[in-house]
């Protein structure tokens, strides 16, 4: 009789469920999405990783392996679909999900990148407190005497102050030295000569630093 056979069948099902706890037979509903485990699994969603610490018998049968794998997959996908926010895909693809950063500790492939060695200029600038300026920044300064902002260098630059004055103080010693060479140098060109020499000196230093940097192999 059908009335008698059903309890017997359910009895058999329950005993088989007892024998292999998390097997497929333990799910009465084939469309169930809930997973019950003795010890709940933990996840690392960044690596799509499921840690399932429930102990297995010494020689687990294949059916148990399949059921355990299914349970892990189900619980991992449950977790993914509930915990991860959905990112709408731009190019007509499927549903994209944002994964959290991975947490399982793994060694790196290579050591952390080392900082590049300082160049001579960088070291010098740090010592002197010179910082990089943006284009146009600091090109002008306030001239209290004129009461306006004037350029530091270039056309009508402040570094040319005192050049081209209509009257020049003459140091006789110096004047004699210039004339002695007979090169057509005058005291009037003194300021300009100093300025040009300063530029040349700086260029010389720059080249020397580059050469030194290349030799020591640092920074470059």
């Amino acid at each position, binding site marked *: 009789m059908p009335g008698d056979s059903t309890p017997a069948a359910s009895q058999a099902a329950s005993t088989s469920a007892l024998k292999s706890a998390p097997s497929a037979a333990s799910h009465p509903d084939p469309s169930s999405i809930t997973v019950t485990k003795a010890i709940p699994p933990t996840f690392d969603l960044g690596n799509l990783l499921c840690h399932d610490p429930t102990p297995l018998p010494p020689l687990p049968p294949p059916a148990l392996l399949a059921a355990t794998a299914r349970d892990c997959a189900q619980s991992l996908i449950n977790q993914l679909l509930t915990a991860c926010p959905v990112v709408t895909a731009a190019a007509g693809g*499927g549903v994209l999900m944002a994964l959290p950063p991975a947490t399982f500790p793994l060694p790196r492939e290579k050591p952390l990148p080392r900082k590049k060695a300082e160049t001579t200029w960088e070291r010098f600038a740090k010592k002197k407190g010179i910082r990089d300026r943006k284009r146009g920044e600091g090109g002008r300064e306030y001239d209290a005497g004129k009461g306006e902002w004037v350029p530091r260098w270039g056309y009508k630059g402040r570094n040319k102050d005192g050049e081209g004055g209509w009257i020049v103080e003459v140091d006789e010693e110096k004047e004699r030295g210039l004339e002695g060479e007979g090169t057509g140098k005058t005291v009037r060109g003194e300021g300009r000569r100093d300025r040009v020499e300063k530029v040349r000196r700086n260029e010389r230093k720059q080249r020397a630093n580059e050469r030194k940097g290349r030799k020591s192999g640092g920074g470059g």
Partner: protein
Amino acid sequence: MLRQIKPKNARSKRALAKQEPLMQENAKTTLFLKGTSSSSLVNDLLTDIHSLKRPYAIRFTKKNPIHPFEDASSLEFFSQKNDASLMVFGSHSKKRPHSMTWVRCFGGQMLDMLELYVVQETARTLQQFKGEKCKVGVKPLLSFSGAQFESPVSNQYTLAKSMFVDFFRGAETQTIDVEGLQLLISFFVGEDGEDGHPAKIQMRCWRIVTKRSGQKVPRVEVEEIGPRIDFRVGRTREANEGVLKEAMKTGKGSEAKPKKNVETDVVGDKIGQIHLGRQDLNELQTRKMKGLKRGRDLDIDEEGEGEGEGAEEDEDVISEEEQDMGNGVKLKRPRLT
């Protein structure tokens, strides 16, 4: 040790620059190679694991006279030469049948090693499974079942777990396509048997099949696609503590800064909050009209002087038509409110 090359042209410079250490690292490349004597079983399984690992894998086909646990220098050379930090070395001998040595490198030097022997009776290759296979290069789901993988003290099983995660996790990604969740690689370890034999590690690969469950989350079924491998654990070499500490470092600032005032709602739309300054209504730009022009104002002032004070009080804003009709005889100054 690899010769230090000084790049002489732009191409070799680029190639070398690609191998330099990065703050956020690329996916590790795996090298598959075999010893002077190797069994066809191990070769086949190496091929299968290689196909799971593609595209982050290189396969060598020649024999190599290497014994990783005696001298790993050749492996280190290969690691540096190929910019590969993971290796699987297959070999077979009477004493160590069907062995696979899983090697991890850090900065071109060997970090740790794990020797696993394939149990011949239960091993099945990818070809021996009929049915649909997974696509190449999908990021697999990984699962580790068994209490021994979770041991608080590091043992051969925790080492194996760390190795397998490193080998199979693929590239790190911020997002994943739901369609791409196709492959599950699961590892099982039982309790140690009564006969004193240490437990085997069982590796199984499954294709994930989803079915409608009537709810938001689908019902998941698994279908074995191979390879199926049972490993007995052999020799291990743990990482040097100092080197491991160096290898576990994560750079400062590698973690993403939390974004303020930007959030994503349930539908997946991005919502941002913007803070504006206080609005000054006196500066508000209203409709522009000819009559409001400042230049005119001055003219009117001069003209309007003869009109007297009374006329100016009850004036109104004039539209352009009105102005035209008035033939420009009288222009009134608009009242500013």
